[in-house]
């Protein structure tokens, strides 16, 4: 610790701190532009000049390390003179266009110019003009306003992992730009809008639509991936105009993914369902709530009476709130149906009934950064969990070794220690090899059940390399973590992968867990939205069609593991009651009644994130049209059906009942499986499908966000294969191919070369209208030239 003095106040700071950090500790503000706590130090704006005793010149506070006994003056005459001088220089080339600048009112330059600027400039010459750049559909540019702080550049290089922006040319002509003809395509691009201290980079979807001081703000929680990033939702006249990150170091730090930042556009989609509708004689009619609710309750009661409660199935979106799920399962159980599930994309349910608790991350999100060895199993990590990938990227730079076992070698923009890329059917065998290799390195006996696996089938060397990396960590792997991604959880042998991960973590003395796929992947368990003994899980209730379905917040044809089957079963059903913020053609075809419910922005509710943290939020805006919060709709349905225990006055009461109080973290988190049977056999005949859920197609809201749909990540699906597979099928990249999945249905897609795939697999995205007909996410495909 060092003792220093800032503006006469003494304080203790850690060795290696800079003056700006020390001042921050004291609550003293030093003006700055280029400095950002999460980025490397550039020290190029010079706004942070301060006076340091015995130093002949003013010093940049962001780049000057503190020394013992140092005396710093942040507001002395010398310091202020230097700061004013810098400001004058910064304003030389900065346009005076604040009245037409979107940053106006939230601009650091504007704010600091008020404090340090003069009312007139000595500069008489011409100002420079910089051509604007096309950075894609999300970020709009006015490059003449750029003060060349390079924050945006450092963000792409350091946080997003690939330098997509740079500063070209020199001196007065220096320009921040992407490489010629390129846009900024990272899934984290929106953060450069927040980072830019001036109005050079602003939000394209938000452009010119409101002033910051006209907006009301509400804290909220992201309804997308399992992290539950904290949001500030900004509204004007009850319309969500913008979403910004709410800093939470334990979850999203100060970042948001583009999906979380821009999905709000979907809230005002033309497909919003704003009036209750019922189908009568094949015709859709808009009706009053009372009519629609009556209709729905009668339909459900009729089916329950004639066919028994088990004839009803409940499909709940994993993005639904805890309260919605809790009331939905209560409603279904009240009707005597045990067929309730929110794990729509899961295909292996063999662990049900054997789980010791709720599967979760197995650690705190913030602890991911403390792991020194990490194995990610089955995950399109950068797209499925961009902010976890970001954390691991930083860990890798600090020396942590990250490895991956997966069926696609997408560039994670993380320095990897080892990787094993194998066809989906072989992932369990390769993971088993890792377990065996770790056991060997540790000199302990591995599970005898693993003895025979592999045997020439799998890449044993890659597995050994992963094992060596894991064991090389501190205390032989005590700080190692095994993270199972979405692909591993959706895998047809998910339980085996989980059991193997458990063995591996056991051998290492480390931890293992699941990267929650959706906002409420843990909350669904807490809400008891899963079938217990005798009930049907999500896959079973679609495979074995029900007479009636209750669908909450999901579009099963796109959100289920087998969209085609979901569509067929829903279409066959006598009554499908849908609670949804949106309507779609598919819904109009299969539903009997459509109840317009609020998306996350228009209801209070709770998401339990992947670390088990309970995060509740209030509505940020009034419901659109006649939409109503789903928990209220379910409550009324419960009352209409004369069910007990639906007397709730607020969503807080529902939460209190569901969680037994108001805990900070839910209880019962446990990844263990009792008596798991390992299923290590797999020999699919033919080409295996690797199905990713593209980042901007993962849920109904983001699928309707227009700007995101134009982003590079939203490209139409293709049939991706490696060179050997293409050659074996007699194809070239770009050929149109007919892809079939056993049945009669086939889709035509362009073939695309993807060097990162193993032999014998075809990668085709799921959750996309173009590929629904292919059915199950994991299947064997036939591919031929169209």
């Amino acid at each position: 610790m060092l003792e220093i003095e800032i503006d006469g106040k003494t304080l203790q700071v850690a060795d290696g701190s800079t003056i700006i950090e020390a001042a921050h500790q004291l609550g003293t503000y030093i003006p700055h532009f280029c400095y950002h706590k999460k980025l490397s130090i550039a020290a190029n704006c010079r706004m942070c000049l301060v006076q340091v005793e015995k130093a002949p010149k003013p010093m940049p506070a962001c780049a000057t390390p503190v020394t013992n006994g140092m005396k710093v003056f942040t507001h002395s005459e010398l310091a202020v003179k230097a700061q004013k001088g810098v400001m004058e220089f910064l304003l030389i080339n900065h346009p005076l266009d604040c009245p037409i600048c979107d940053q106006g009112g939230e601009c650091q330059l504007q704010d600091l110019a008020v404090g340090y600027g003069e009312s007139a400039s000595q500069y008489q010459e011409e100002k420079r003009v910089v051509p604007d750049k096309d950075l894609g559909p999300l970020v709009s540019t006015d490059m003449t306003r750029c003060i060349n702080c390079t924050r945006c550049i450092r963000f792409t290089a350091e946080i997003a992992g690939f330098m997509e922006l740079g500063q070209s040319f020199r001196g007065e002509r220096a320009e921040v730009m992407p490489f010629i003809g390129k846009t900024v395509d990272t899934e984290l691009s929106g953060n450069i809008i927040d980072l830019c201290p001036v109005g050079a980079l602003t939000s394209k979807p938000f452009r010119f639509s409101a002033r910051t001081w006209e907006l009301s703000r509400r804290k909220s929680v992201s309804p997308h991936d399992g992290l539950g990033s904290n949001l500030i939702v900004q509204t004007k006249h009850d319309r969500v105009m913008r979403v910004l990150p709410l800093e939470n170091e334990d979850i999203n730090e100060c970042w948001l993914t583009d999906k979380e930042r821009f999905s709000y556009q979907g809230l005002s989609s033309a497909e919003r369902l704003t009036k209750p509708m019922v189908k009568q004689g094949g015709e859709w009619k808009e009706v009053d709530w009372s009519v629609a609710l009556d209709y729905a309750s009668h339909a459900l009661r009729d089916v329950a009476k004639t066919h028994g409660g088990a004839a009803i199935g409940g499909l709940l979106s994993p993005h639904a709130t805890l309260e919605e799920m809790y009331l939905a399962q209560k409603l279904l159980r009240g009707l005597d149906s045990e067929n309730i599930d929110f794990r729509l994309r899961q295909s292996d349910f063999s662990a049900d009934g054997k789980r010791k608790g709720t599967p979760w991350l197995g650690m705190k999100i913030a602890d991911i950064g403390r792991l020194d060895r990490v194995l990610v199993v089955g995950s399109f990590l950068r797209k499925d969990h961009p902010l976890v990938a970001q954390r691991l990227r930083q860990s890798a730079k600090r020396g942590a070794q990250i490895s991956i076992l997966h069926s696609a070698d997408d560039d994670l923009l993380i320095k990897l220690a080892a990787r094993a890329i194998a066809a989906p059917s072989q992932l369990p065998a390769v993971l088993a090899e890792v377990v065996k290799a770790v056991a060997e390195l540790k000199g302990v006996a591995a599970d005898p059940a693993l003895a025979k696996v592999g045997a020439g089938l799998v890449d044993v060397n890659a597995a050994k390399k992963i094992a060596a990396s894991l064991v090389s960590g501190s205390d032989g792997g005590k700080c190692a973590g095994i993270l199972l991604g979405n692909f591993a959880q959706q895998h047809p042998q998910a339980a085996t992968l989980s059991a193997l991960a458990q063995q591996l973590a056991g051998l290492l003395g480390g931890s293992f867990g699941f990267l929650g796929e959706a906002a409420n992947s843990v909350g669904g368990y807490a809400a008891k939205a899963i079938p217990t003994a005798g009930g049907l899980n999500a896959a079973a209730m679609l495979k074995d069609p029900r007479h009636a379905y209750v669908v909450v917040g999901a579009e099963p044809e796109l959100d289920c593991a087998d969209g085609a089957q979901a569509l067929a079963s829903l279409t066959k059903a006598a009554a499908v009651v849908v609670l949804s913020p949106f309507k779609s053609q598919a819904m109009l075809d299969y539903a009997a009644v459509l109840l317009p419910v609020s998306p996350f922005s228009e209801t209070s509710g709770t998401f339990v994130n992947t670390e088990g943290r309970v995060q509740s939020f209030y509505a940020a805006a009034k419901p659109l049209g006649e939409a109503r919060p789903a928990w209220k709709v379910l409550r009324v349905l419960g009352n209409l059906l004369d069910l007990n225990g639906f007397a709730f006055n607020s969503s807080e009461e529902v939460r209190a009942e569901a969680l037994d109080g108001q805990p900070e973290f839910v209880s019962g988190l446990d990844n263990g499986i009792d008596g798991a049977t390992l299923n290590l056999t797999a020999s699919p005949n033919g080409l295996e499908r690797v199905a990713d859920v593209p980042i901007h197609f993962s849920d109904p809201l983001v699928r309707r966000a227009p700007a995101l749909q134009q982003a590079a990540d939203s490209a139409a699906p293709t049939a991706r294969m490696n060179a050997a597979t293409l050659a074996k099928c007699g194809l070239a990249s770009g050929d149109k191919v007919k892809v079939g999945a056993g049945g009669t249905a086939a889709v035509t897609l362009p073939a695309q070369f993807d060097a990162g795939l193993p032999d014998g697999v075809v990668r085709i995205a799921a959750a996309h209208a173009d590929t629904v007909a292919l059915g199950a996410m994991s299947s064997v495909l036939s591919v031929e030239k169209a």
Partner: protein
Amino acid sequence: MTNQNDMLSPEAIKKIDREVAKYPADQKQSAVMAALVIAQDEKGWLSKETIAAVAGYLGMAPIAAYEVASFYNMYDLQPVGKYKLTVCTNLPCALSGGVHAADYVKEKLGIDFNETTADGRFTLKEGECMGACGDAPVMLVNNKRMCSFMLPEQIDKLLAECK
């Protein structure tokens, strides 16, 4: 991104490898300046495809190589004439006739800075200090040949030489 025409030749790659070998294995990009020179010598100028190819070969982001290529005068981001003349107009030279030398060349060739003569023979560029202020006015021919004390007479001679 790189099409066949713009791939670097095996000779160029060999030369680049020699430069790369001067730096630690994990700092290949330190060779970017030399690699760009080699690529430009081969192609005549640096197209975005060439820059991307160099960046790819050195394992760096294309924009990072472009930052370098656009920073220094010796790299040409547009095709240039057979002879590229760079006249230093920085202060020490300007005080000793640098600007006059440039004006003289402009008049003789009938082109301004950043222009190429119609016959494709000469391109004129404005340069920054070449570290030879004592020899002012100075000019650089094709980035490599330094010419000192460039008074009109010397300029005439130089232009006549450049066939």
